[in-house]
C-alpha cells in the first residue's frame, strides 16, 4: 500500500440500516471510545442515547441573543424617544413602554434567530472546507441512504485491528480506512 506519506484519520464502517447503526453506536460507546461519530441521511431517533450525547447548549446561546435584542431595542427606543429626539405626538408621553412592545419583540426574535444560526454553525464546527471523509467514495451515500460509523485515530483506545473487529462483530457491510489528505 502506498500509504506511507498519509496519516490515518480513522476507520469507517457502513451498516445496512438505522437499527444496526444505533446498535453499533451503542457498542462503540460501551467499548470506551470517545472520538467517534455516526453519519446518516437524517437524524435518527434515539441515537443520542446510543451515543450518550449531552443536551445541546444551543438554547443558552439563543437566550443570550434574545436578551441582547430585547435590551438593545428597549435601550434604543428609550434613548431616541426620551432623550435624543423627543417628539410630542398627540401629547403622548415621550417614554411610553407599551408602544415599544412590537419593535422590542421583533428585534428580540431577529437577534435570537441570528444567534441560533451562528450557534449551530459554531457548535458543529461548520463551515468546513474539507473533511477527510469526503475522500472516501462510498461516503457519498451518507447524504443518501448510507449509515456509517467512524472511529477516529485520535482516540486513545484506537487500534486498527480492534476497531475493525468491533465493526465486524456488529455486522458492518463495508470497512474502510480513512486517511487525512495532506
Amino acid at each position, binding site marked *: 500500500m502506498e500509504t506511507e506519506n498519509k496519516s490515518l484519520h480513522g476507520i469507517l464502517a457502513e451498516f445496512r440500516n438505522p437499527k444496526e447503526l444505533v446498535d453499533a453506536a451503542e457498542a462503540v460507546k460501551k467499548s470506551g471510545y470517545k472520538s467517534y461519530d455516526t453519519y446518516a441521511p437524517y437524524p435518527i431517533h434515539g441515537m443520542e442515547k446510543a451515543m450518550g450525547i449531552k443536551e445541546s447548549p444551543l438554547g443558552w446561546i439563543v437566550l443570550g441573543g434574545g436578551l441582547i435584542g430585547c435590551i438593545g431595542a428597549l435601550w434604543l427606543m428609550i434613548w431616541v424617544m426620551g432623550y435624543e429626539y423627543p417628539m410630542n405626538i398627540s401629547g403622548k408621553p415621550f417614554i411610553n413602554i407599551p408602544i415599544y412592545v412590537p419593535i422590542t419583540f421583533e428585534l428580540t426574535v431577529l437577534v435570537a434567530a441570528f444567534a441560533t*444560526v451562528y450557534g449551530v454553525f459554531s457548535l458543529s464546527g461548520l463551515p468546513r472546507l474539507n473533511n477527510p471523509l469526503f475522500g472516501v467514495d462510498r461516503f457519498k451515500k451518507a447524504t443518501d*441512504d448510507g449509515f456509517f460509523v467512524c472511529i477516529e485515530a485520535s482516540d486513545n483506545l484506537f487500534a486498527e485491528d480492534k476497531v475493525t473487529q468491533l465493526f465486524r462483530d456488529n455486522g458492518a457491510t463495508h470497512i474502510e480506512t480513512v486517511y487525512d489528505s495532506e
Partner: protein
Amino acid sequence: MSTDYQYAPEPTLVKGDHTFREITDLIVKTPLSPTPPLWYLAFGLANILLIVLLGAVGYLIWEGTGIWGLNNPAGWGWAIVNFVWWVGIGHAGTLISAILFLFRQGWRTAINRFAEAMTIFAVMCAGLFPAIHVGRIWVIYWVFPIPNQMGAWPNFSSPLLWDVFAVSTYFTVSLLFWYVGLIPDLATLRDRTKSKVAKIVYGIGAMGWTGSFRNWWHYEKAYMILAGLATPLVLSVHTIVSYDFAVSVIPGWHSTIFPPYFVAGAIYSGFAMVLTLMLIARKMYSLEDIMNIDIMERMNLVMMVCGNLVAFAYLMEGFIAWYSGYIYEQGIFWLYVVGPYAWGFWILMFCNVITPQFLWFKSVRRNVALTFVISILVNIGMWFERFMIAVVSLSTDFMPSSWAYYSPSFWDIITYIGTFGLFFTFFLLFLRFLPMIAIAEVKKELPQADPHNYNDETKEFIEGNTEPVLVQQEQTV
C-alpha cells in the same frame, strides 16, 4: 354505509413504498437533470412580467406616486392592498414550516420547503409596495434607526414603523430558517451531482455538511428553536400589519378584531396559494407520491377552518357595527353592502364565505380539480377583502363632502401584475436549482427511518409496525 372509528396502522405519509434511495432520486432528479423546455417557456413569461414590473417601478420613481389612482381622501390604494395580500400569502409558509413542526405534523415535510420558498418570494413582492409608496425611495433609509445628517430619528410609536421592523425581521428569519433547512439537502445535491461547477456551488451552500450525528444533534435543536421563534413572529407580523389600520381612528379600521382576523385571513390565502402552486408542481415534476391527496385533504381542512374564522369575523364586524351604536361604523357597514364598492363586497362574500363551505365534503377535499378552483377563488376573495378594507374606509369617512370614488390607474394594475413576474422568476429558479421537497425530513418520516420499527434480533424492518391511530373507516353494514 355507516362510519365507524377503529384503530388501524397510521397511513404512511409517502405513498408507493419508496426506499431512502428512491426518495433521493425522486427529488434530486429535478435540479440535476437538464432543463425541461416547458420551464424555459414559463421562465420567459415570468421574465416578461418582471420587466413590466421594473418598467412600472422605474416610471413611478421618475414621475412620483401621482401616476397611481390615489386621490384625496384615498391615499392608500392598490399598493397597500397588494402589500397586505402578498405578505398574507407568505404566512402559510411559516405556518407550515414552523407551527405544524411544533405540533409534530409529519405531513408538513411534503410541502414545507416549497411553502417556505413561497413565503420568501411573496414577502419580497410585499416589501416592494410600501418601499415604492414612500415616493422618495432614495431616502428609504430614513425608516431605519440610522443616525443621519439631519439628526432626526424615526418615530417608534408609529405602527408604520412597527411594520418596517416586522416585515424585515420576518423576511430575514424566514430566509435563515429556509437556509438552515436546506443545508443537509444541499449536501445531498453536492454528493449526487456529476457537474464540477454544481458540486462547488452546492458544496459552498452545504458548508461541509457530512450528516454527522453530533451535527444533527445541534441542528435539530436549532431547527426547533427557529420554529419556536418563527411561530410567534408570524402571528406578530400580520398583527402589526393590521395595526396599520386598527391603530387609526377611521371607521371600519379602528377595531380590536383586526389582529386575529388578519392572521386567519393570511393563513387562509396562504394555504390557497400553496395549494395552487403545489397542484401544478406535483403534476409537472411527477411528485404525486409525496405531495399526495392525503396532504391536499389536510390542507383543505386548514383552509376550511380559516375560511370559517374569517367568515365569523365578517359577521362580528356587522354585529359590532350595530351593537356599538356608532353611526359611522354602521355607515361603513352599509357602504360595504350596498355602497359604491358593493360589487367588491359580494365578490368577497362569494369567494371567501361560500367557496370554503364546499370543503365540508370529503369528496371535494380529495378532488384535485375542484381544490384548484377553490384555491384560486380564495385568493381572489382575499385580495378583495383587503381592497374593501383599505379603500372603502378611506374614500368614505366622516365627512360626506370629502368623499371620492377610488379607482386604480393603468400603472396600479401593471405593477400588481408585474409582481407575479418577480414572484415566479424566483420561484421557477427555486424549482429548477434547489430540492423542492425537504429530502432529509421526508426520509425521517418514512417508517423504515425509525429504529423502533426493526426487529431487535434479526435487525430487519417490520412492515406495518407504525403506531396505531384512531381512523375513520367506511364500512358497509
